[in-house]
């Protein structure tokens, strides 16, 4: 539980002016250098990290560099590391499934311990976690970096075994499923019919990805000269296509320009692969929509050990999605000051992209180290989220924004965020994976 002396650390510099000054000044934020350059600190703290995805791995590398004497344990049963932003390129037929796959162990520092199991329970009062096999691991500080759970089971009739057959796609499900989705999309754009594109009503990782895949399908149909036989139908979960109003307007204009048909307030709940019908909850009740090709994107929730624990939001719009209830600037848990959440699991209003992880990791590193050494933390997270919104093969919009729905372009005046550019495509195709890998190593 939060001790009074911890309180001042929860919102350092959080006067509005202080925060704006920080956010406005890139150089003020550039105080943390990658772990390798910062001085190493002496502590025997026992730190446990749940999850060795983008966020967990990057933090493990940075923390072990900064605090060589700390005991750092990472807990994750997944042997394969997945570079998920690559799934879109795989599902567009531009990369093979292996493009996104590497080994978890190759990214982890030798100095830490990896328990190759999933956590099944977190007890924040006793400060211990239990792994799938029943092993108990205690901690002084806990980092939640479990990512999220794709809840395909909550879509009635959906079976991942069907992906690639009968026009069913699921770009999110993994690299192999992304590759099968490409086969289905390729066949569909040869033949024509109705392409149906969906997104869930829950929080989701990379909210631009459902839009990207819609644009890519349109692009292939145009290139194959079959666009006349293809109908593109996008089912939005709410009254908008994207949560940031200015981006939403731009996407709406592009959808009109490309001749997509859009339905709002449509949340997919079931699929009938035999009849090729998808069922949606709408303000007017349940409604069936036909498809010849569909990209099923399921509801996303926190993994069970967080979702069904006191770590999750207990009230409000996220109560049943289970995201960790952390302060949105410091990423520290609001009830347990020695617990942080980083990456997709964090219950904050924006984020859930690898680009957000890159911003969040140094913040958690700074907050945690300040806490261990009784110092004042200086870094906070401003909601930075980014997503190269592909609008066709060869062009994208480099959309970047923060908690306030402000656009926060990295290259203001040079790379326009709402323009379809080749340079933004190059960022996605060449720079993104390299930057992601550098981040995993703690160097970016």
């Amino acid at each position: 539980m939060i001790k009074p002396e911890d309180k001042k650390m929860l919102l350092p510099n959080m006067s509005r002016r202080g925060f704006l000054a920080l956010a406005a000044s890139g150089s003020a934020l550039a105080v943390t250098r990658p772990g390798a350059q910062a001085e190493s600190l002496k502590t025997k703290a026992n730190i446990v990290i749940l999850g060795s995805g983008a966020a967990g791995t990057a933090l493990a590398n940075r923390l072990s560099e900064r605090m060589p004497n700390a005991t750092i344990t990472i807990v994750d049963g997944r042997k394969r590391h997945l570079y998920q932003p690559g799934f879109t390129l795989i599902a567009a037929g531009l990369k093979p499934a292996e493009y996104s796959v590497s080994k978890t162990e190759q990214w982890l520092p030798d100095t830490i311990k990896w328990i190759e199991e999933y956590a099944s329970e977190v007890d924040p009062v006793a400060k211990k976690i239990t792994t799938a096999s029943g092993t108990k691991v205690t901690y002084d500080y806990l980092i939640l970096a479990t990512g999220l759970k794709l809840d395909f089971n909550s879509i009635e009739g959906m079976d991942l075994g069907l992906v690639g057959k009968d026009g069913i796609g699921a770009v999110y499900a993994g690299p192999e499923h992304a590759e099968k989705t490409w086969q289905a999309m390729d066949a569909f754009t040869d033949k024509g019919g109705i392409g149906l594109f969906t997104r869930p009503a829950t929080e989701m990782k990379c909210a631009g990805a459902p839009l990207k895949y819609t644009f890519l399908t349109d692009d292939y149909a145009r290139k194959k000269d079959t666009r006349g036989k293809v109908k593109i139908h996008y089912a939005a979960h709410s009254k908008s296509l994207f949560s940031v109003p200015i981006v939403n307007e731009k996407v709406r204009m592009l959808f009109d320009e490309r001749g997509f048909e859009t339905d709002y307030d449509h949340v997919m709940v079931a699929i009938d692969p035999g009849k090729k019908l998808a069922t949606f909850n709408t303000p007017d009740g349940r409604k069936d929509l036909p498809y010849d090709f569909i990209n099923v994107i399921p509801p996303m929730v926190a993994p069970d050990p967080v979702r069904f624990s006191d770590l999750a939001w207990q009230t409000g719009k996220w109560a049943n999605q289970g995201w960790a209830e952390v302060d949105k600037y410091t990423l520290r848990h609001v009830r347990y000051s020695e617990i942080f959440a980083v990456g997709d699991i964090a219950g904050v209003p924006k984020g859930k992209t690898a680009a957000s992880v890159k911003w969040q990791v140094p913040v958690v590193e700074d907050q945690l180290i300040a806490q261990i050494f009784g110092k004042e933390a200086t870094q906070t997270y401003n909601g930075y989220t980014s997503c190269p919104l592909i609008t066709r093969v060869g062009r994208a919009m480099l959309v970047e924004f923060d908690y306030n729905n402000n656009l926060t372009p990295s290259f203001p005046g040079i790379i326009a965020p709402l323009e379809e550019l080749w340079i933004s495509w190059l960022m996605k195709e060449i720079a993104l994976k390299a930057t992601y890998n550098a981040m995993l190593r703690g160097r970016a």
Partner: protein
Amino acid sequence: MKDLTFDTLLAVFEEVFGVGLFWALVAVAAVITLAFLWVVLRDRHVKAVPFLRAELLAPIGAVASIWFVFAITSSGMKDMGGPIDLIVLLSIGVAGGVGSTILVYVMQSLIAKSS
């Protein structure tokens, strides 16, 4: 992006090419540049005829480097979307042109001397 330091940039380039290849490319570029300086110092000036010949090949270097970028990415001329795209494209061309000029000049000077 939070901050783009030189360290970050270096780390990203190492990931794009692989550490070995990246530093090999840097070494090759450094060797060619040094060789150019050495040749110029040795001859005490840039020789007009070989330099003109090298310059005539610059457009080939420019086109080749642009072609190379298109070949290793899923993109092409049709994807140019705004002014920055053309600036980047021209910069790649200029880099290729200047690089090939220096390379060809150095090679001519070295061959001329040794034969």
